[in-house]
């Protein structure tokens, strides 16, 4: 049976700006491991427009990590072309790609990847260091970014003094500091508990809604993918499904329905009591 591909690109043209910031044309990626050749991507074509919020999903080996590497200009396609903001970046040199990453892309990683023993402010400043701007301007931009994620008051803290959620927020601020057009997030909630994960999705949704930031996020959790507006499903190096999310989750609402930390503690205590009561009950 032929694979069903539901193409959402026609539908996405109804969004406010239909300018494609990302366009992949028949992209192949092959890894040469001596005797074996691994085809990580086999002819992927897609378009992502400005202001979209896309989740990339797929099992291990599906090519989702590879596509993120290519979108992030960390890797080059073996065949095919990648247009970022209408510029063909597929043949660019390493240093040209580095410049592109610095100016146009923001990265958020599963493991935060903050510099230890360094203040949040300095962490957020990191991309500006390679952008050739003055130290004063760098600090200013970093503080702006931290304010956008609500951590201006923690600017001097080191990662060891911040919770997981706060660390990820610092990482998001770092991703935003050079005012990129696209934020690429690789399993951003992978190392966070449920409540914190929703808080992070809330920030991402806010950035997407209010500032029109294009967000591409990789996840293996279907729940998280529901926070995006569009899902791309990869399998065996091909794009299998491209769908608009139905019944999208709005993080704000989800947060209201989640118990707070205090309520959670009270619930746990109640559970414990009940369990003990059962254990003591006469047989």
């Amino acid at each position, binding site marked *: 049976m032929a694979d069903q591909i539901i193409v959402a690109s026609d539908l996405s043209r109804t969004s406010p700006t239909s300018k494609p910031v990302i366009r992949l044309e028949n992209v192949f990626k092959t890894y040469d491991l001596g005797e074996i050749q691994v085809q990580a991507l086999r002819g992927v074509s897609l378009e992502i427009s400005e202001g979209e919020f896309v989740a990339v999903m797929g099992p291990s080996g599906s090519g989702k990590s590879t596509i993120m*590497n290519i979108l992030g200009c960390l890797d080059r396609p073996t065949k095919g072309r990648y247009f970022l903001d209408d510029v063909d970046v597929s043949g660019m040199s390493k*240093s040209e790609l580095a410049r592109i990453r610095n*100016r146009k892309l923001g*990265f958020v*990683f599963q493991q935060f*990847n903050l*510099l*230890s*023993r360094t203040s949040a402010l300095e962490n957020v400043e990191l991309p500006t260091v390679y952008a050739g701007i003055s130290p004063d301007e760098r600090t200013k931009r970093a503080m702006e970014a931290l304010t956008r994620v609500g951590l201006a008051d923690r600017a001097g803290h080191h990662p060891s003094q911040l919770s997981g959620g706060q660390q990820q927020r610092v990482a998001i601020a770092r991703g935003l500091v050079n005012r990129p057009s696209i934020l690429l997030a690789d399993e951003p909630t992978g190392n966070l508990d449920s409540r914190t994960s929703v808080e992070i999705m809330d920030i991402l949704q806010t950035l997407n809604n209010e500032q029109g930031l294009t967000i591409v996020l990789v996840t293996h959790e279907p729940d998280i993918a529901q926070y995006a507006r569009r899902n791309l499903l990869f399998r065996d190096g091909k794009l299998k499904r491209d769908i608009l999310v139905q019944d999208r989750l709005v993080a704000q609402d989800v947060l209201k329905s989640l118990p707070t930390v205090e309520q959670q503690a009270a619930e746990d205590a109640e559970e414990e009591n009940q369990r003990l009561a059962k254990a003591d009950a006469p047989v």
Partner: protein
Amino acid sequence: MDFMNTFRLALRALSRNKMRSALTMLGIIIGVGAVIAVVSIGQGAQYIVQQGIQAMGTNAVFISAGSNRAGGVRQGYGGVKTLTMDDLTAILKEIPLIKEASPALSNRQQVVYGNQNWNTQVTGITPNYFEIRTWPVQAGSAFSDEEVDLAANVCVLGTTVEKILFVDENPIGKTIRIGNLPFRVDGILESKGQNVTGQDQDDVIFAPYTTVQRKISGITWLQFIAASAVSQEASVAAVAPITSLLRERHRIRNGDDDDFLIRTQADIADLQNQTQSTMTYLLGGIASVSLLVGGIGIMNIMLVSVTERTREIGVRMAVGATEDDVRRQFLVEAVTLSMMGGFIGIIFGLIGSALISNLLSWPTLISGKAIIAAVIFSAAVGIFFGYYPAHKAAQLDPIEALRYE
């Protein structure tokens, strides 16, 4: 990325692990400190030696019989018999640059006073020798020219001989036996201490050369002539005329070697200087080996640091650092480490040399050249040993680096 920026970032990176940075610098600190200390102390020693040589008389010219160059100032006893009093008279007469001259011939003799016994060098001179050698008499007086004419049995003792023969007694006017002959002690010389080759200069007795020639040693030729020129420049200028005069008098043919050796104060000073500075640089060179070791230490630590910071490097690349940026960063870190170590080493070296010089009562001489060399060396060590780790860091693949555990 401008330099001040890079430097500040390097400092931040190094201060993230202060202990490790400090330990890494230790090699350079010790290396540079050792070199600075050794060179400074060496120069202090040189200065002391120079002073000692100066104390021998700056206008002095020494003409020794025999051309063997063994041992610097020490005269060989080789059987060259051609240097004579007539030579001395000729020199005084024909070379106006030379002001004074004294003959000298030595003989080892047993000397006795009471029940004290000693074997020492008895040197025959004319009393102007003491002036030429800037060697004053501290008690009594030197013998006179008349006594030289008369070949009188008089003598002047060095302080070592005095202490051994007379212990606490006043030696002036007393009679000692040199060989088997009685000699009256006229004076005691000031102490000169050890000479540059380690001999005790105070272990000596001076007597009129006439007495020594006729009554003690029986030889008529001289072992050396001690002369003083009218000035320091004159002492150097006198060498050529003395040479040609003596060659003529000794009938030495063209192309044959001199049968004498002329040394001016300047020559002696130079020789000692050369020897000392060779020693100093040799020691400095050995101390530099520890600089090399320090550099290797830096390379090792930087390699470890690069490995540990693999993910950090991946992140830096992801947010826009180029290979050059990364390479420059780690290179600057390495150079910062080595130069900071260098500066601290210089300070420690100077303190060390000041302490040791103080202990030995030597002047503390700071070699500006050594300091500049140390600064340049530490920078070079940083660049050389930091390059390979920096290169490794720059060559990392960002995707692999981000995945690194």
